[in-house]
């Protein structure tokens, strides 16, 4: 019996006693917050480096380098915002122990992530139209190109990880072994990915359109 329960984390399943500092947040949730905060510093470093390079460049976008497609990226941003709401609905359903609804909304959220990644692929490589690479935005040729690919690529990796994480939680929920606490953790990660995208969208896509 002890061995059977040794692999289960009772601190997640049990109602965690309120703590003077962290209230009802269980260790898994605190660990996720700590991970997200360290990850935020990674993004912070990249965005600061981008700002320093951008501010110190006499010429940011060289002749022949394409501009970024703001309307298309705005649509991708809307997809991510929508998926942030769908993961909240999934968490809410999990709290109500409505497994079917939780699975459906987790699936919709993952689909949002896949749509976003497809959009990013279309932007970089191209699907119906040539992508930025074919249009002349080549990694390593300018600070504008390199920072664009590094920052959006690093974020894209997070979206990919988020989709895999969502599908793993979805599979566990579908099998009836998932818990609401797990959905809450994946929701935190997904919101973080959306929060960071908002900063990337403003700093990388919107500011260059206004600054020469």
């Amino acid at each position, binding site marked *: 019996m002890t061995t059977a329960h040794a692999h289960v984390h009772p601190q997640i399943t049990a109602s965690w006693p309120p703590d003077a500092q962290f209230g009802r947040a269980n260790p898994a949730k605190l660990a996720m917050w700590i991970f997200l905060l360290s990850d935020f510093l990674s993004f912070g470093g990249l965005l*600061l480096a981008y700002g320093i390079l951008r501010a110190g460049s006499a010429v940011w976008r060289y002749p022949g380098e394409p501009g970024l497609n703001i309307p298309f990226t705005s649509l991708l941003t809307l997809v991510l915002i*929508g998926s942030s709401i769908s993961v909240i609905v999934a968490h809410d359903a999990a709290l109500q122990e409505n497994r079917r609804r939780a699975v459906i909304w987790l699936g919709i959220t993952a689909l949002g992530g896949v749509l976003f990644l497809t959009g990013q692929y279309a932007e970089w490589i191209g699907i119906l139209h040539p992508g930025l690479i074919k249009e002349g935005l080549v990694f390593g040729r300018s600070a504008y190109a390199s920072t664009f690919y590094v920052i959006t690529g690093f974020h894209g990796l997070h979206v990919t990880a988020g989709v895999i994480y969502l599908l793993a939680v979805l599979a566990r929920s579908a099998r009836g072994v998932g818990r609401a606490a797990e959905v809450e953790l994946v929701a935190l990660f997904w919101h973080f990915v959306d929060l960071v995208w908002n900063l990337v969208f403003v700093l990388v896509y919107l500011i260059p359109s206004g600054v020469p």
Partner: protein
Amino acid sequence: MSSTADATTRSEHRTREYLVMLGVMVVLMVLEVAVALVPGHVRWTVVLLLVLALAQAVYFAFYTMHLSRETIALRRMAAAPGLIAAMYGLVLIAEAAWRHFR
């Protein structure tokens, strides 16, 4: 019967809450795009965009990530990386200004 009615009311309340969240985030995003695309003074455009991005990030953290329901200790912990990044930014701006004006 009353518990069913309560559940329906709670569900309607939650749906309204989700729609408000979605609305606020979409409005902030549309404002950001509008500020970027409408021609104006470059410096003020950048300042406005940064303010809007910060507002959206805070809204995300407080409401969609439910930081507003957490304790003050957890909120301070969550704010720390942003403050550290802001501090680095200020130091770098001050250093650049010093080099420019010395």
